[in-house]
Structure formats: C-alpha cells, structure tokens
C-alpha cells in the first residue's frame, strides 16, 4: 500500500470506512471511504481543524458512535480481526483491554459519583478477573506508574477532589491498566494548562519509549505533534490529505492544506498578523466536488473541482492527495 510506514507493520488498518451522520437536514458523510493505518509501536498524530473528522475516526475505531452517527461501511482491522464484525460483547472485551481511549476533558471523563478506586478496580476486575485485593495492588502500581505522587490517597478521592492534570493521569492509568496495545488520545491536553500539558506529554512519551505503546494522538496543536509523534496524518473534511514521517512533513509539506496549517502557527520573534487559510471547513451535508479542499486552495484549477485526487507518493512513507503538489515543492 502506498500509505504504509516503512519498517513497521500496521497495528490498525482502516479501509473504506464510511461513518455518516443522519441528521434532519440530510446525510452528512463525515468519513466517506477513509483509508488509514496506525503503525505499531509509534505515536501517530492525526491533525486537522475542528470538524474535520478526527474524533469521529477514533470513535469509529472504538465503535462508540452514537445516533445520529453510524458506521455504514468499511473495515477496521486490528490484530487480524475486523472490529466492525465483532458482536457488542466481543467489542466490550477489546475496549479497555486491547484499545483504550482518553478524552479532552479529563474530569468529565470520570464518573462524579465514583472514587478513583471504584472506577479503576472495576475495570481491572472486568478485564483481568482479579480478586479485590489483587486489583487494589495492581491499581496502586498503575497509579504510581503514571506519576501520581500518593497513589494510596488518590485511590480514595472523587474526581472533583483532583486537579485536571491528576484526572488525566488517572484516565491514562485506566487506559494502560489492562495492557492495551493501542491508546487513542483525543486532544488529551487541550483542557489543561501549559505546564500540566507538558507533564502529560512527557508521560505519554515515556509510555512509548518504555512499553512501546502505540498511540494515536488527535490534536490540532502542531507543536504537540512535533514533540511527540513520529508519524503524522493530516485530515481535511473527513479525508487524510497527507501522511508522512514527522520530519518529512515539517520539512516538505506537500499538500497546500498542510502548508497552510504550518504557516498559520505563531512563530517566536515573528511580528505582524498570523497567516490563515481563507474560508472555512466545508459543510459535509454538501461537500465540494472533486478535491474537498479546492474552494480554499491557492493552487486550485478546474480539474480539482472535477476529479478527486488519488494518493501520490512523495518520498519514503510520505504520500499526498493533491493533483498539483509538485507545484508546491
């Protein structure tokens, strides 16, 4: 495949995934034939504007889509199994045990009526069948593992008694407690203040280095991507428009959208107005024909409105979905 990452095997292979939203105004084809791979043992970044379908991708992998959203077609292959064909009961065994997820609002992710102990021990008992005593020991270990200073105290706390950063650490503890292979992190640091963001990033990095935990980092923060990821996929209006190693992407952005994203970052020492990409994310109830980016694209020509571009190889492990990417380079 054109989009495979050199030197690795994909842990998750998504083919032709269609997740549609059945709204009263019509069907929004948010993901309409998504192809995507997450390389094993790496941290892959998934970047894009709000509403580009990043979270929908993660929720689809977890099969957490709720009405009006529904997975219509496609294949999500994980360790040789198509997740979309599992029964709900089999899927429950995958969630939390093989694939975990952490969310944007750490405190809102923890049930306010349960202590950390209630939440964490339950998950350990569901997946590992541990006795209460063993589960408690495992819980203390994993809380220490995510860098919580006083695990025995934290264990008996309610979410409202913990800071946002501590809550996110608890969520990460929950996510890795049962030996997950893949962590889906949906904007894990967006709601945290900068110093805490940094600590959480350090923790995720450690997890990659020490246990080889595969991660999908969903974010719109390119700084975070540069810090943490080795692979990046850029998403626009439900399609991956460019995927590359992190250096290749920053050195040689080949899609006009990627380039626009990189240029709209504030640079230290730079003065004047920030550059932005003109226009806004298209209405997915009526997406633009051809290349979905063409109405906002500086390179757009008549061909772009007619013909949807296919992935073209830029370099090793680097591909782009644009008719005129060569004009940019």
């Amino acid at each position, binding site marked *: 495949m054109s989009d495979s990452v050199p030197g690795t095997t994909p842990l998750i292979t998504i083919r032709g995934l269609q997740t549609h939203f059945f709204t009263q105004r019509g069907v929004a084809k948010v993901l309409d034939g998504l192809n995507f791979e997450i390389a094993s043992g790496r941290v892959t970044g998934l970047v894009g504007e709000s509403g580009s379908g990043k979270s929908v991708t993660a929720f689809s992998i977890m099969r957490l889509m709720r009405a009006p959203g529904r997975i219509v077609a496609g294949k999500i292959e994980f360790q040789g199994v198509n997740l979309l064909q599992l029964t709900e009961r089999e899927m429950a065994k995958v969630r939390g045990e093989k694939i975990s997820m952490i969310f944007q609002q750490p405190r809102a992710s923890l049930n*306010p009526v349960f202590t950390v102990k209630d939440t964490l021990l339950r998950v350990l008992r569901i997946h590992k069948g541990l006795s209460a005593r063993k589960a408690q020991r495992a819980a203390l270990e994993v809380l220490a593992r995510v860098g919580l200073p006083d695990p025995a105290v934290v264990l008996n706390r309610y979410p409202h008694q913990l800071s946002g950063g501590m809550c996110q650490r608890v969520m990460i503890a929950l996510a890795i407690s049962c030996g997950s292979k893949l962590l889906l992190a949906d904007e894990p640091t967006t709601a945290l203040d900068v110093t805490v963001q940094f600590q959480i990033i350090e923790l995720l990095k450690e997890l990659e280095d020490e246990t080889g935990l595969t991660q999908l980092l969903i974010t719109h923060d390119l700084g975070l991507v540069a810090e943490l990821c080795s692979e990046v996929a850029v998403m626009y209006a439900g399609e991956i428009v460019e995927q590359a190693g992190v250096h290749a992407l920053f050195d040689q952005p080949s899609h006009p959208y990627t380039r626009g994203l990189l240029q709209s970052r504030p640079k230290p020492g730079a003065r004047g107005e920030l550059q932005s990409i003109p226009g806004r994310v298209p209405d997915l109830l009526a997406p633009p024909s051809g290349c979905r980016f063409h109405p906002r694209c500086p390179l757009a020509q008549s061909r772009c409105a007619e013909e949807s571009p296919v992935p073209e190889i830029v370099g090793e492990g680097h591909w782009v979905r644009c008719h005129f990417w060569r004009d940019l380079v």
Partner: protein
Amino acid sequence: MAEPLTEGTTPVQVANRASGSEFWYLLRKNPVTLFGLIVVALLILMALFAPLLAPYDPYATDPRISLQPPSQEHLFGTGIWGEDIFSRILYGARQDLAIAFGAVAVALVIGCLLGAVAGYWEGFFGEAIMRVVELLQAFPAFILALAIAGALGPSFRNLIIAIAFTNVPIYAHLMRVSILSNKRSQYAMAAIASGNPHWRVLFRHLLPNSLGPIFIQSTLQPGYAILTAAGLSFIGLGVRLPEPEWGLMVAMGSSRIISGEWWVSLFPGLFIIIAVMGFNLIGDGLQDIFDPHRN
C-alpha cells in the same frame, strides 16, 4: 487589625462547610421547607405511635354516644356509630401514609426502570416503552386510578397499585430525559471505552447520576398520592369500612354537614390538607435548594 481579619475569615468557614451541614444551612434559610419537613415528620410520628397516642380503640363503636360534638372526652367528637374521630384520624395516618409511600415507591422503581431502559436504548425498543407509558398518561390521573381501582376491586393493596400506575409515567419521563443527557457525557463514553458492559454503564454509572430530579419529584408525589387515595376511598373504590382512612371518614360525614354535625368530615379533611401541604412545601423547597441558579 482584628476586625478585617474576622471579616476575612467568614467566607473560609462557609467554604469549608461539609455538604451535610450545608444542607442544614440551606434548610435554615428556607423556613417554609423546614416547616414542611416538621409537618411530615410529625405525621409520621403520629402514624408510628398511634396505639400509644389514641385514647380509644379506633374500631370501637357505641351507639349511645353517636354524633357528639368535640368535647374533652372526644377531642374531635364522635361519628355516626359513636366512634372516636381523633383516634381514627391517628390510625388513619397509618393507612394514608402507607398508601402514599407505598404507591410512590412502586411507581418510582417501575418508572425509573422503564425510563432508564427507554433512554439508553433509544430506537424501536425505547420508543415502544414510551408509547405504552404515554398510553397511561393519556387519561387524567384520577380517572385512570378510578378505572384500575374499579377493575381490581376495593382493597388496600389495589389502591396502592392503582395510584402507583398513575405515577409511573412521571418517573419514566424524568428518568428517560436524565439518561438521555447523561449518556452523551464523556464519563459515559469513557465507561464504555474502558470495557464496561452496557447494563453496567446504565445502572451503575448513569442511574446514580440521574437521580436528582427523581429525588425532588418523590417529595412532591406522596402529597398527590394521599389526595388520590382519599378521593378513591371517598367514592368507595379505596379502603373500606371499618378501616380508618381520611378520605373515607370525610365521605362518612359528608351527609351530616347539612344537619350541623360538621366535625365528622372537617377534622379528617383538615388532616388531608395538612399532609398534602406538608409534602408540597418540602418538594418546592428542595427544588429551590438544589436549583443551581439560586443565589
């Protein structure tokens, strides 16, 4: 220096109040609610200690002292067969409170279960449940209770069933809406994402978080239940003689008001009013206390 310091310490004390004492604090600021609580507490005590408080046997009759006005021996007077109305009112509190709490408890359990399931599994299953619930709601509550009590026959147990049925839709709707909003919360997503089975997410995660409105509704509901119970007994479809029940007692005396024996109906009627009012005051007050928009 001392004065600004003491001023500054007050808010700290306020902030440190435990949630239990905060409840009492709010209650003190809501004297009406407190009054309602006291009224209901007194009624419950009255029901519990009826055998100790009642001067006479509530079932005893004595034709020689029939229809005597209130006096020192018979505080609220006597009825048609010479029964002591005060004693019967005390015992009547047992009947009416038991019916009210029983009916509300049954309605709460059934209504919450139906609403929770209907809210969690939207789509055909949930819709089907709510259509059945709405069928119950299509009738005025009293008419529905009347029909059910009429069909089942007059008895203490059937009265509870009839009143419970009329209360089920309220709880089902409240619970469904609560679950609908809570299940889209991130902690519900996170609970599923960490592998909890759906029944567990519903009953252990969502249900406890959805009980707030149910709690307030449950303080209002016994008042209405007493009203319905008394109404049904009044027209002969509830508790039957010789059981002491307030509605029934009002009915017994209703034909006597015109001939001047007002006390037979008045005193049980007063207690119905007091009980209904007590429950309503609690419910209204709690609504204010738990309202996040209050000052």
